[in-house]
């Protein structure tokens, strides 16, 4: 998805072009991405049918169908239409809309899969993390392929990242820990077959998630105070900023992975104690 968005943005001139035939690459990545989405949807359909359930009963399934339709509308006209000029505007809008929908659906699916419940706060926490990862990727792309408007766009993306990381990940996650996890999930994990999921993974997660808002804030403040000419001309500064954005993205993805391990251990513990 990232490659499709990057090559699409290069074709539109939003970010600086790299060498090679970008259109061909965009088409190739689009086909791969479409095949992956189709495969995921068929797999999901197969799993639901095994349980005798309709795929459209769940929000995850409905969003999956929307994603599949958007992908089909993106790929098929792109391959069949000879004059794509009239279709270009809609193609661009749907392309940019696809990324957040996919993140929301993937977060939703992940937590439905591992928690098998409807914990709204955990879902909000998870979606915030997924969107923060998306915005950090956006910041990285703006820094790596700078144009005159890249700095202002990277600033806006960094403000949203700080908000998502602080409100969605830090506060919502912390509130869930205090009101739900400590009383409901933690005892189950400790009694279950994987107590290390709390003693090591959760303890590590609740400690290092303190670092994330500080890193995001430092990145945002630096982007806000950086001079546009330095941003455009000084490769050293841009490399330094990319490094910090990569660090923040790495921690967000690590949080995601640890969250999945903890949720899975909670579910396994619940089943073991039945």
């Amino acid at each position, binding site marked *: 998805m990232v490659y499709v968005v990057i090559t699409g943005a290069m074709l539109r001139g939003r970010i600086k072009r790299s060498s090679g035939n970008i259109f061909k690459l965009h088409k190739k990545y689009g086909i791969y991405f479409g095949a992956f989405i189709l495969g995921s949807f068929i797999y999901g359909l197969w799993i639901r049918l095994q349980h005798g359930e309709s795929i459209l009963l769940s929000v995850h399934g409905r969003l999956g169908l929307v994603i599949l339709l958007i992908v089909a509308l993106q790929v098929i006209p792109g391959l069949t239409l000879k004059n794509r000029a009239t279709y270009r505007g809609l193609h661009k809008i749907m392309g940019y809309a696809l990324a957040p929908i996919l993140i929301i659906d993937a977060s939703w699916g992940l937590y439905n899969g591992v928690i098998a419940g409807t914990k709204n706060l955990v879902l909000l926490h998870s979606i915030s993390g997924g969107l923060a990862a998306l915005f950090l990727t956006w910041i990285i792309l703006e820094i790596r392929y700078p144009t005159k408007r890249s700095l202002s766009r990277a600033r806006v993306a960094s403000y949203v990242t700080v908000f998502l990381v602080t409100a969605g990940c830090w506060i919502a996650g912390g509130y869930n820990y205090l009101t739900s996890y400590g009383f409901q999930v933690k005892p189950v994990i400790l009694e279950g077959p994987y107590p290390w999921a709390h003693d090591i993974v959760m303890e*590590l997660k609740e400690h290092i998630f*303190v670092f994330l808002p500080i*890193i995001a804030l430092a990145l945002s403040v630096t982007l806000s105070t950086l001079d546009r000419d330095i941003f455009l001309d000084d490769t*050293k500064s841009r490399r330094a*900023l990319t490094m910090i954005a990569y*660090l923040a993205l790495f921690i967000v993805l690590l949080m995601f992975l640890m969250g999945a391990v903890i949720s899975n251990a909670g579910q396994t513990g619940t089943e073991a104690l039945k």
Partner: protein
Amino acid sequence: MKESAISIASATIAIFLTGWVIIAHDLSPDFKQSLASLTGNHWMSVSVIAIVLFILSLELLIGFKSARRFLRVYDISLWSTSLVAVTLIMVLGILAVLITQFLSH
């Protein structure tokens, strides 16, 4: 802006000190208890400490030119590398302490 790494330097200092607070509170149950008594939960106290340290470092670096010069906050490459290194070392340090404690129990 010549001293664009002020917030990165402050983040590095805050994460370094907070990392040590976390390791200390994992090793000392009394310290953990005293942190928990501050706000009701130890991680909330650690969060507050991290924010206070970040703001204090930021104010210190903004207020004192000598501190900025001594810490070379004009060098954005130096401080971004330090931030990455300090964060990863602290994450690995905390992980090592938690694994040791788990295995010793």
